[in-house]
């Protein structure tokens, strides 16, 4: 049972953007001299563990590899070397409005987006009423999404991801969408989701207050490396001092 303690184990993770630049046939024809592939290493040897139920905040300045790391955890990027072990938990990047067909109704898009996130039709059918009532769009739920205002669009998108929950949630900037009332409601829902003891959460944010309020520990990435990791207060104090 000892290894069950951790929900996420990351060992010596390296991710680089290299030689994957798309090239044009013409360019490679005329440039016979082989150009050196540009290597940009976004994540350089990051290791950390997250216990089940923990809430980890990731901070760092722009371009320090936070989003890349998050996407690697979600399985969107493959690491160049190193290991990511999620112990079989389901994981999702809190992504808004994935795979929407704008000409179709909100109800149909709930199914579409949900199934893309890896849920079965039955699972969505069970939750669809909850999603619809949470989004609070009224009769608009059966109208094409292209008729929605941008606020309504994000309300629907948020409700889908918030109600179809996974064991591990990866959040890139805590989302607050819609009008003041929905903002409050969505923030509260987020907080409930994040605070759930069974759920492991990783939050990337530039907002120090969010991190201080929500996270149990913090990872500070700097130039793709772990600068500091540990107790929220300690790391945030050092980070804020650094950013001054």
């Amino acid at each position, binding site marked *: 049972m000892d290894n069950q303690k951790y929900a996420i184990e990351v060992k010596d993770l390296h991710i680089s953007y290299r030689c*994957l630049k*798309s*090239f*044009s046939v013409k360019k490679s024809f005329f440039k016979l001299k082989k150009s050196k592939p540009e290597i940009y290493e976004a994540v350089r040897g990051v290791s950390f563990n997250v216990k089940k139920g923990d809430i980890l905040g990731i901070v760092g300045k722009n371009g320090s590899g936070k989003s890349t790391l998050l996407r690697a955890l979600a399985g*969107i990027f493959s690491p160049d070397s190193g290991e990511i072990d999620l112990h079989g938990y389901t994981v999702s990047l809190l*992504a808004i409005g*994935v795979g929407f*067909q704008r000409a179709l109704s909100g109800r149909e898009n709930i*199914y579409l987006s949900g199934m*893309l996130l890896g849920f079965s039709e039955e699972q969505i059918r069970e939750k669809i009423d909850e999603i619809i009532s949470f989004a609070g769009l009224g009769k608009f739920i059966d109208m094409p999404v292209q008729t929605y205002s941008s606020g309504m669009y994000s309300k629907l998108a948020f409700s889908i991801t918030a109600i179809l929950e996974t064991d591990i949630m990866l959040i890139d900037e805590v989302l607050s969408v819609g009008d003041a009332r929905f903002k409050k409601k969505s923030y509260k829902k987020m907080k409930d989701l994040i605070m759930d003891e069974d759920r492991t959460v990783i939050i990337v944010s530039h907002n120090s207050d969010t991190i201080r309020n929500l996270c149990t520990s913090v990872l500070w990435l700097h130039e793709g490396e772990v600068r500091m990791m540990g107790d929220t207060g300690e790391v945030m104090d050092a980070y804020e001092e650094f950013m001054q």
Partner: protein
Amino acid sequence: MRFFSDTKKYAGYVVRAAKSQLKAEVANSYLNWVWWILDPLCFMLIYAFIFGVVFDGREPYFAAFIFVGLTAWNFFNKCVIGSVKMVKKNKAIIDKVYIPKFVLAYTRMGVDGFKMLISFGIIICMMAVYRVELTWNVLLVIPLLLLLLIITFAGMTILMHLGVFVEDMSNIVTILFRLLFYVTGIFYSVYKRLPAPYGIWALRLNPMAFILDGLRKCLLYGQTPDMRIFAIWLVIGCLVAALGVKIIYRYENGYAKVV
């Protein structure tokens, strides 16, 4: 194998996505789904006029002859050409969630496959109008369509991968497909019109020409296509598809970095 378990896992999504794409395509048009019938029918009339009347084409059941060819070709053409830019077009999806990228190919095949089925419905009507004599050979349509699906999928996986990295791929493919369009024999019989040794080889070496010819043989003329050639292309198709899937699994996580 991971390919089969992934296929099973995403089958529900593919069906749903294909359906919604079809619905979305016609959602704002006046004639709605009637377009799915009208569209192939109109093209068939145009081609039958140009090649039957202007160029004096002489195949039995000429309109049906063209229509069978056009139906299968359109499916192949739309799917494979669409696959070149498929990953880039679906950036919004692949940036946010992981899906095996060939699922996108399935969805596309679902959309165009549905349209192909409607066209086949029209073919059946045409056969009834022409009073084509039916033989048991008609059943060979099923394996031939299966071969068409496999060849299409194989082409899609390979081009989908190349399309991510090679910017000019779509220009190249467009030209190649124009050539293929004319040598596949959509408006003429490759076998009859090309001089003796070339005709038969043009059929053997081009899987699309073989499929088109085979479909016409078993649907319209009560003949059996060459089953040895069928078997060879089936094996080649499966091997290329397996290779394509392998390449996609190997590199697909890099796609998000490029687009």
